[in-house]
């Protein structure tokens, strides 16, 4: 609270704010309406990212209760903004009036030419503005009225509720000072005639700051889900490291990789590897690089040239590292030619034009499309098909999958593409990660089966508690 006295505007506004409430509360007595709620309290929600306050109140004993309206008072900052806007508006209006009066006087009365009158009138108007602007407090603040203009309606809730989570509040203003909020609640009830009546405003709550804590525990469900998924993957990786054999089913597209490389060697023609058209900030590109490492290793062993045009400079850098290492592993570092991995252009269709031409001219024996693709997918795959190349594609862009499925020999669909790197590496721990992913799917299946069953039973029997349970699960655990 000591801060308030250092800040002149704040300390001046504070009494104003309370005065506004006093007016509101005072005005209430005159209304013959249902009584307002009592014990209105506002508390900061603990362990969150800030910006949320819980308001609670005690319902009054009244006939025909319909619900409550939760309002909050304008903060000091908002009041200040409203007042300064009002002041600016008033100043602008004052200036305009002064200008108009002087201009009319000059032109109509003194017969000055309009051009000169404009200049002269403007000087007068600016003088008036300057003098008026000395008056810092421009009239009474527009907020100290009982018409509710200093209050902001947050929500209307039903009669059985006596609390409300108020979101989207500020934790701190631009200068980092905490923002204080106060709340009032009104009762809504039906009178004997069946008309809706509103009570006056309740006594305002104590001011509260919607603080952000060190940890945001409202995101705990996300953390738990992340830990569960990562934990499953880690568990099976460690298990595989201890030497437990893990069985993974065959993926048709991957078995074909070696075949494609072999065929290219037989035919004495090059291979083409396209790592998608996105940059390294896309996981698919990184996964594509991993697959490239494996393909390049096989290529080095067979001594088949592999060409990698890239659409991004960073991808070129990473691809060179990978391929160089693959040649090294295969013991063929002398055969590594960095010039076969080169940058073309960032432009999607410029790249497509280049690669289409390349495919037709070099007639590669095998084409790999591994990464994030968009509309160019079909152009590339159809061109590759026309030169009789064996084509293997992998992408996680669902909208492009149909085109690859239609035009390529093998397509790694979505998750299969990510599995490819693990699968191709042949390392037991990498296979473990696949098993971990499967546990994630089991989790999804179980959650879906249980919740859908519960929801269905709830819908058929009309059980409110079951429906509430599902709703709670969706809104809290799976809040996204």
């Amino acid at each position: 609270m000591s801060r308030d006295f250092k800040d002149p505007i704040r300390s001046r506004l504070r009494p104003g704010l309370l005065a506004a409430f006093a007016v509101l509360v005072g005005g209430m007595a005159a209304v013959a309406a249902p009584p307002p709620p009592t014990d209105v309290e506002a508390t900061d929600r603990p362990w969150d990212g800030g910006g949320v306050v819980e308001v609670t109140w005690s319902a009054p004993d009244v006939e025909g209760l319909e619900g409550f309206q939760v309002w909050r008072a304008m903060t000091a900052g908002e009041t200040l903004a409203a007042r300064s806007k009002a002041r600016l508006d008033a100043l602008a209006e004052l200036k305009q009036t002064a200008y108009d009066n002087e201009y009319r006087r000059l032109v109509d009365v003194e017969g000055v030419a309009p051009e000169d009158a404009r200049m002269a009138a403007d000087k007068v108007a600016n003088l008036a503005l300057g003098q008026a602007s000395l008056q810092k407090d421009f009239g009474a603040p527009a907020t100290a009225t009982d018409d509710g203009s200093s209050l902001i309606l947050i929500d209307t809730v039903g009669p059985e509720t006596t609390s409300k989570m108020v979101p989207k509040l500020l934790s701190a203003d631009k200068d980092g000072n905490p923002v204080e909020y106060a709340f009032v609640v009104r009762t809504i009830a039906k009178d004997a005639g069946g008309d809706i009546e509103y009570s006056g405003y309740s006594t305002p709550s104590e001011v509260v700051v919607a603080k952000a804590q060190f940890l945001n525990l409202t995101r705990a469900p996300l953390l738990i889900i992340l830990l569960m998924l990562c934990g499953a993957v880690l568990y099976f990786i460690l298990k595989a490291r201890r030497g437990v054999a893990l069985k993974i089913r065959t993926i048709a597209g991957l078995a074909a990789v070696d075949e494609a490389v072999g065929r290219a060697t037989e035919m004495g023609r090059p291979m083409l590897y396209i790592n998608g058209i996105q940059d390294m900030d896309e996981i698919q590109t990184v996964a594509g690089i991993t697959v490239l490492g494996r393909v390049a290793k096989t290529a080095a062993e067979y001594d088949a040239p592999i060409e990698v045009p890239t659409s991004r400079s960073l991808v070129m850098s990473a691809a060179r590292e990978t391929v160089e290492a693959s040649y090294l592993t295969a013991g063929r570092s002398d055969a590594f030619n960095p010039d076969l991995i080169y940058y073309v252009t960032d432009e999607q269709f410029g790249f497509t034009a280049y690669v289409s031409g390349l495919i037709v001219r070099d007639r590669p024996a095998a084409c790999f499309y591994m990464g994030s693709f968009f509309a160019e997918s079909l152009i590339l795959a159809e061109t590759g098909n026309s030169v009789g190349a064996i084509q293997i594609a992998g992408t996680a862009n669902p909208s492009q999958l149909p085109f690859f499925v239609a035009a390529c020999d093998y397509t790694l669909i979505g998750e299969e593409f990510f599995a490819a790197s693990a699968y191709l590496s042949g390392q037991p721990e990498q296979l473990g990660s696949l098993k971990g992913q499967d546990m994630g799917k089991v989790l999804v299946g179980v959650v879906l089966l249980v919740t859908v069953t519960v929801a269905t039973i709830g819908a058929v029997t009309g059980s409110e508690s079951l429906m509430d349970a599902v709703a709670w699960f969706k809104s809290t655990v799976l809040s996204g």
Partner: protein
Amino acid sequence: MGFFERIGNLDRRWIFLLMGLAVAIPIIIIDVTGFIPPELPMPKAKSTFQTLDDLPAGSKVLLSWDFDPATEGELGPMANTFIRQCAQKGHKMYFMALVPVGAQMIRSTTSDVIGTYYPDLVYGEDWVDLGYKAGNEAVVKTLVTDFNQMFPSDARGEPLSTIPMMSGIKDLTAFDAIVSVTAGYPGCKEWVLFASTPLKIPTVVGCTGVIAPQMYPYYPQQIQGLLQAIKGAAEYELLVNDWVRRDQFRNTLLAMGVEVSGEDSMGDLPSTSEELDAWAGDHVGKGLTEAQATEVRGFASEKKAELVAPVDAPEPGLFLEAQKRMGPQLSAHILMLVLIVLGNLTYFVTRRRGGGR
């Protein structure tokens, strides 16, 4: 070699040629003959039209152009028609965009439609361009509670406080309808989830074919109209063009002192001054009184020509774009269907002859 073997080994360049012709020929034919492929307005297009038509003149409509030049071919025509309906109806239009190039789209569509066909609309009183706002769904969320925070000034840099039609607009609740023309994210989905659903503002959406399926679940509860790609645009265009003709005809009648009631009575409009008399006779009791019909019949021939003019005038090319584009669309789709059937026939015949490889 039999027919099917030949087809089976068909050089794909013939298919390319067919595709090229299927798109090019309709474009030329349509332009030369003025023939417009027939469209049958579907319920989603009808309700789109109806939603904006049901609002009284002078309603405030927020139009969010969330698309870019790449999708202008699909979405530009519907954007133009949205403006046309609002302008003709007399709604107040507030343009904004959630994607950066949407600002350009606003400039081009407003200059095409308002600048050319509704030049008497006053900027700042009948329409305003608020421009692009960065922040994706956060923009929508903020507008729900506070309009001024997001838009201190319009796209031309004028403070909103000086723009007459902005007075009284504090937040989104001030609007009577929202129109979103969307090519992707951010766009209609954000408008539906964060604005129209919580605030219950009537919302109509126009979007590309790829996005439309994601919007189906929201129709008709959360969105009242949905135009799907160029087909939806063509259906909507047809509805609006038809209505504009009737509205113009009615306005001309009104200007000549014939008070008409009921818009339905405007159906089957006369297109020549000769047909006018018959039309007036047909509509006695259906919008026209006996006296009015007699009055219409009694007009001098210039006056009759003047009356029929708005109906008889050719539709501006701008408002036929979508319907025209349905021409190549239709022929290309039919070609695709024929190709699929032909490909499969070939496959079955050659497989049988080849011993079921």
